[in-house]
């Protein structure tokens, strides 16, 4: 390592005073309090579907934009127009009573994270995810225990992804 580089890597370690610990004390929280807090999540009466539909519309718009602007705009930028609404669906679905939306969106994000450039077949796969999400919302399918329909849906999407990567392994 050169002297210049060694100097560049020099670091000062600082241990800040732990004021937070002094304030809260020790012993943690009673498990019952955590269960009460979890109940708030499990029993939320917030209707997620209108918000979810907005995110889905943004995803569909991202797919449309990617289809028309492919080759003109950087692939990463186009993928981000789809990945951000997908991330919102993944993040919020299960928080507000729709775990199946989270399961499907998480798979979509994984797919979008792996494709370098969105070709037309990749967009077909993404469209398949968007259609599945639309069907889940229209049916009000929460998918708390996945169920047969949820399992069939995710298996079909996994199969579409598998076929895509068989064709485009890189």
């Amino acid at each position, binding site marked *: 390592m050169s002297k210049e580089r060694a100097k560049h890597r020099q670091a000062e*370690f*600082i241990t800040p005073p732990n004021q937070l610990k002094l304030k*809260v004390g020790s012993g943690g*929280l009673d498990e019952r309090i955590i269960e009460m807090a979890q109940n708030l999540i499990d029993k939320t009466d917030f209707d997620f579907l209108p918000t979810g539909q907005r995110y889905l519309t943004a995803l569909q718009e991202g797919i449309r934009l990617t289809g028309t602007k492919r080759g003109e705009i950087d692939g990463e930028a186009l993928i981000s127009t789809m990945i951000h609404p997908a991330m919102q669906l993944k993040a*919020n679905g299960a928080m507000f009573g729709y775990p199946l939306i989270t399961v499907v969106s998480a798979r979509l994000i994984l797919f979008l*994270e792996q494709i370098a450039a969105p070709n037309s077949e990749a967009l077909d796969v993404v469209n398949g995810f968007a259609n599945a999400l639309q069907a889940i919302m229209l049916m009000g399918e929460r998918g708390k225990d996945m169920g047969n329909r949820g399992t069939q849906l995710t298996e079909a999407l996994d199969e579409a992804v598998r076929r895509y990567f068989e064709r485009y392994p890189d």
Partner: protein
Amino acid sequence: MPYHFDTVSVLIVEDNQPMAMMARAILQTFGVKTILLAKNGEEGFEAFCKHNPDIVVADWMMKPLDGIVLTRMIRSEPRSPNPFAPVILMTGFSERSRVATARDSGVTEFLVKPFNAKQLYKRIAQVIERPRQFIRSEEFFGPDRRRLVDATFAGPWKRHLDHTLGDES
């Protein structure tokens, strides 16, 4: 004796109102009395400077300023009242590269959405019980990005070796 959160203040920075309300309700159930809300990184930094909260819980994706920029401002802006404040970043992303980006901005803990009450509690307990050392270098100021610290080894090559070995802890 259990934790007493009644004197602790938490700033929630989240543009999704239902999510902000959910996080607030969970923290209230934990016993936190002072909870401040902001809708984006810009508002969040103003609230942080004004109230100097004990913990910041911020979403990643927000406009005009996101949770990563907010974290950098908390760590490095001269106006920041506490550059060591613990920042818990909430996000739907869990990919390794995204976690690394968050870590490199100075985030203390990472909370993947959807989360449950126990996961949020664990992140808070983590910043209370195992606060990270801070590192100041030419390239970085923030919590030590390595979770596991070998206290027995203080050699001058430690950081270089960690880098070489690809330490991700």
